[in-house]
């Protein structure tokens, strides 16, 4: 993605949301923009509609837990199929109450992706049609993908750690 494309995208964002961009960098072939957390959906809607950018395909979305920063990052990847451009938007949420407005208004595909992120990281998506756990058992209380929870399930009795020299 050449330089002028990057400027164009930054210009489009700054046109209506000046000061929202915290940092932009070029990671391999992905233009990554880190934004403030509260106006993410209007920005994505703006990128969706704007004739210069027209990012109308949500490739994927996931959460990332940074224990040392005490934050949960949300990563959205958008794709403009006509001009084959891909960008990645990142926002950082405090771990106490990670809440983000839902993206299902713009992309219906975000429905299950958000439910999965809620299931793994506990990020609350305001306005989501039915925000429930999708992959895990409903009665599960912890958010398993967070770093502080162990990988193995704790109720097993046969594989105690002495066997593995831990």
């Amino acid at each position, binding site marked *: 993605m050449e330089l002028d494309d990057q400027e164009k995208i930054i210009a489009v964002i700054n046109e209506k949301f000046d000061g929202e961009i915290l940092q932009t960098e070029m*990671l*391999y*072939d*992905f233009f*990554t923009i880190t934004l403030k957390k509260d106006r993410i959906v209007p920005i994505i809607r703006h990128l969706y509609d704007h004739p210069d950018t027209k990012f*109308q*395909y*949500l*490739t*994927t979305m*996931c959460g*990332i*837990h940074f224990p040392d920063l005490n934050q949960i990052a949300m*990563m959205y*990847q958008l794709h403009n*199929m006509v001009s*084959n451009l891909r960008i*990645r938007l990142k926002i950082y949420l405090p771990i106490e109450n990670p809440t983000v407005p839902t993206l299902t208004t713009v*992309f*219906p*595909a975000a*429905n*299950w*992706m958000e439910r*999965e992120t809620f299931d*793994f990281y506990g990020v609350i998506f305001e306005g989501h049609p039915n925000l429930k*756990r*999708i*992959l*895990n*058992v409903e009665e599960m209380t912890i958010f*398993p*993908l967070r770093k502080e929870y162990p*990988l193995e399930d704790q109720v097993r009795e046969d594989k105690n750690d002495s066997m593995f020299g831990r």
Partner: protein
Amino acid sequence: MDVKEPVTDQFYQAQEKQYSYLNLGPTHPATHGIFQNVLKMDGEVIVEATPTIGYIHRAFEKLAERRPYNQITPITDRMNYCSAPINNIGWHLTVEKLLGIEIPKRVQYLRVIIMELARITDHLICNAVIAVDTGALTGFVYMFQQRELVYEIYEEICGARLTSNVGRIGGFEREWPEKAWEKIHKFLKEFPVVLKEFENLLNRNRIFMDRTINVGGISAEMALSYSFSGVNLRAAGVDYDVRVAKPYSSYEDFKFIIPVGKSGDVYDRFMVRQEEMRQSLSIIKQAIEKLPEGPHHAKVPEFYLPPKEEVYNNMEALIYHFKIVMGETDVPKREVYHCVEGGNGELGFYLISDGGRTPFRLHMRRPCFIYYQAYPEMIKGSMLSDAILTMSSMNVIAGELDA
């Protein structure tokens, strides 16, 4: 009571409409996998479907955070187990992109050959299952026999039949044995004949066409809004294929067309897969003709296990060998996303490494998980038998659905 007005009408309006609930549940022969749909039915017609998934959720993403980089390959081929080599090589391409390893041309061509073989087997099983769901049971047995031939090719190359764990970061673990080439040539000669037979059985078959044409269709806009990718998107009319949009592993050297459907129904998906199998065959032939000479792995000993005689003779190889086997190789602190054209869509790996021995975060873009959301939309108002046909034509694989 007014005699002229028939009594039944009042009785009929008085009763509000009752629906029956059918459980297309986890253990159901028609779902070809483990997902559950509670169907709200009015007689035979489906009014509403509420899916429930996660019945074989195995926490791949958490598991990947505890394993060194070359030990994650066995996990990836348990995602879409119908075409395991594509997942493995997709993962290896991601790590090589992160490390910036330069892959020799020969390895890229070998990878293209085994990925196209895997694509053929994936489409084989899906088309055979569509045939089974419309009642043509014999098609499945013949198609599965072809899959056995490809299993034998996998055995020659990497020892395993289904979960192949093929290749390493940087190339293949050994040069492909002579027997593997023999079997590939035999497969290339035999398979088109059987594929032609299977097509004559089904393509212009009156029953098959009536059962599949404009059943479970989806428009291009709706497919894009639900982030479809792969065969289901191409059947809806959008010609997006990762091998052409973002060529990887020297796909740009080969000439192949992308079959595109019109109305996105089951018949289009079936035909797109049939044509893609033929395109894969032509890619394999081109790759075999233009196969360059050269090593079967890149010169990067700190990630690719050095050969044994080197390990015994010089010191660096011994250190590299020890670090790789103990999984202590440190990876620079970077973030990368790489996507591959999998059996049923764009299979992406979003990898963040924090310099340690295991990935900090690995998110897998699983095409099944994303496009299966549209299933309740697609079967609203259709008959029950069409709903089962739509599900098998979308090639939803449970392992990839709830990773």
